[in-house]
């Protein structure tokens, strides 16, 4: 008896440690009030690559790192920036937010990099934001996010809400969808996104029939899908992230729900995720992004070809990868316009810079440090690729605080 109880106690202790361990190890470095000078000696300029190369986010973030590396190699082959070759220094954020902050500090203070490219989750961005602000160093953040942020030391090259979520809702409304059900992972992005969706729905005559959150990594969706089915909504707005999507869509199909009866529009499922969920479960469902591998244009043909040649013909390109690739070129253009690597001068040169990106023409909005992007709704095909069914007709001006939308006045 005593040994059994002893064993259980040991087991409990171990499980507790296993649960708590990833959260430990946070460390705050000393802060300086003045910025750190960038190392411009030598004939190279160092930049930091800060992505999760291990842990749960590695699946997505490794592809982003690859896209950044591709851009750097192309730029170096064409002669570099201001006569200097770019030397990438890659650090592993390990899917752990305090680690992101530590590595950011290391890149800025030890390596004295010109800029850092990376981060994926909003949690990691929020963790490094004070580090970049204190040291007056630049971060380029390549992923769509929940908006309501505008750090003077971050350039946001992914979509903010009015370039992804709002167009997604506009599309549903144009399709005659009168009611939606909201399903999301339980963290900052889905909760903020759903707040925006509810405000939009209230102002546009749509009903929100239900709202459910699953903890990140959760793979049991029986009950949530039952609720969705019972609600008989016209469409589902899905802000789930990661593995949960796999379980959700398997359950969704098992319940007899289809893209024809109740379409799901997702904002976190790109080409790479489609591959791991399975087209069997996804064909016909909708996504909202700014870029797809199938987006037409010579800039994208070149990008897709170069990426596949370097990383493998079976590797798809996706929106965050494209935004990361573009961010390196935008930094280069800013540096060249400023004729300096100095952060304040580079920032000052940002407004109005344009780049013919794979997604089409993008322009930096200096005031918000976001970029003008074209919104695109896509439909997932049987081949796992996403084809565009609607676009905004041209780049949409970024509006992270949704100031131009009267219905959003109570949000920020």
């Amino acid at each position, binding site marked *: 008896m005593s040994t059994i109880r002893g064993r259980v106690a040991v087991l409990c202790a171990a499980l507790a440690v296993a649960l708590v361990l990833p959260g430990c190890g946070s460390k705050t470095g000393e802060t300086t009030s003045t910025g750190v000078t960038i190392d411009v000696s030598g004939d190279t300029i160092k930049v930091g690559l800060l992505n999760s190369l291990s842990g749960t986010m590695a699946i997505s973030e490794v592809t982003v790192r690859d896209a950044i590396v591709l851009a750097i190699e192309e730029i170096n082959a064409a002669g570099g920036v201001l006569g200097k070759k770019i030397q990438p220094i890659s650090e592993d954020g390990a899917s752990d937010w305090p680690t992101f902050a530590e590595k950011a500090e290391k890149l800025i203070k030890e390596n004295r990099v010109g800029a850092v490219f990376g981060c994926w989750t909003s949690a990691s961005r929020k963790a490094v934001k004070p580090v970049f602000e204190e040291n007056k160093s630049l971060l380029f953040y390549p992923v769509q996010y929940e908006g309501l942020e505008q750090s003077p030391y971050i350039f946001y090259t992914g979509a903010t809400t009015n370039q992804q979520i709002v167009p997604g809702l506009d599309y549903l409304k144009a399709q005659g969808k009168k009611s939606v059900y909201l399903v999301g992972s339980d963290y900052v992005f889905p909760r903020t996104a759903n707040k925006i969706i509810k405000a939009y729905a209230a102002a546009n005559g749509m009903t929100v029939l239900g709202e459910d959150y699953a903890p990140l990594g959760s793979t049991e969706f029986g009950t949530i899908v039952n609720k969705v089915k019972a609600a008989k909504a016209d469409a589902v707005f899905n802000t789930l992230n990661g593995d949960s999507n796999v379980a959700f869509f398997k359950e969704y199909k098992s319940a007899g729900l289809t893209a024809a009866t109740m379409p799901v529009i997702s904002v976190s499922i790109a080409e790479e995720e489609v591959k791991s969920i399975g087209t069997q*479960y996804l064909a016909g469902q909708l996504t909202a992004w700014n870029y797809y591998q199938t987006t037409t244009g010579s800039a994208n043909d070149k990008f897709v070809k170069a990426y596949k040649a370097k990383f493998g013909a079976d590797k798809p390109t996706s929106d965050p990868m494209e935004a990361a690739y573009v961010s390196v070129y935008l930094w280069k253009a800013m540096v060249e316009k400023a004729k300096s690597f100095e952060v304040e001068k580079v920032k000052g040169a940002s407004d109005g810079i344009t780049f013919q990106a794979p997604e089409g023409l993008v322009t930096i909005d200096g005031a918000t440090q976001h970029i003008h992007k074209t919104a695109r709704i896509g439909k997932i095909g049987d081949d796992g690729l996403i084809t565009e069914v609607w676009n905004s007709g041209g780049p949409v001006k970024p509006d992270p605080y949704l100031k131009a939308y009267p219905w959003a006045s109570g949000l920020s």
Partner: protein
Amino acid sequence: MTVVASQLFTGISIGAVLLLIALGLALTFGQMGVINMAHGEFIMAGAYTTFVLQSAITDAGVSLLVAIPVAFAVAGAMGVLLEFLLIRRLYARPLDTLLVTWGVSLLLQQLARDIFGAPNVQTRAPEVLTGNTRIAGDLTMANNRLFILGLVVLAVAALTVALRLTSFGRRIRAVVQNRDLAAVSGVPTARIDRLTFFIGSGLAGIAGVALTLLGPIGPTMGTNIIIDAFLVVVVGGIGHLRGSVIVAFVLGVLQSSVEYLTTLSVAKVAVFVAIVAFLQWRPQGAFTLRTRSLA
């Protein structure tokens, strides 16, 4: 009414999944007392076996059925190897066993990452298992969940028969109830341990095959479910298969009912609170094994 019935079915099927992932553990942890943190990775091995077989056998239905015995053998063999190389040297040292098997679990995860890549892989389910069966009116039951329920019933029945009616089962029970007495009575305890570990790990492989129908197949899938599996066995009462069976279904129905009325996060908390309260009241679990062993 429909909602209540379909929620009840959801609860039972959550219970079936819990039971399937806990069944092997009920044997290796419950019966033998080995805390095997790599049990989740045996489940992962079963899932990847399904994936590999599907690239060889293109028919999704056939490859799924073939995967069940093959995954049992693959995961079972991994279990025996682990028992033979490490665990048998560490009997009666639970803390060391735990740390060693945790290390093995990390190794196996990285191995899977190196062989199959970090992103999740997908298998195609046979078309019939992606649909549902209409019971009455609006009430439908997902075929994949019915399949898993059937698989669990079969597995529990087979295990019960094996433990109750075969001479091998009698030996396992003898070793569990009093190892020393079994040994002096001529039961080859080392061989019995290895065989028990084979079956327990093999059952994890079968659970892996079933999970391909429900969720993601990736290197970390095992870690995500191992805690649930341990909970079922601990609450059910160590050394008792019956306890695990009842507790799995009770927890499944409890979780789905609370979730329906509130949210998934609240339901998870409710289940944990219920478990903690229950273990305060009955630290030995729902059922206890009465033995004359002094240990």
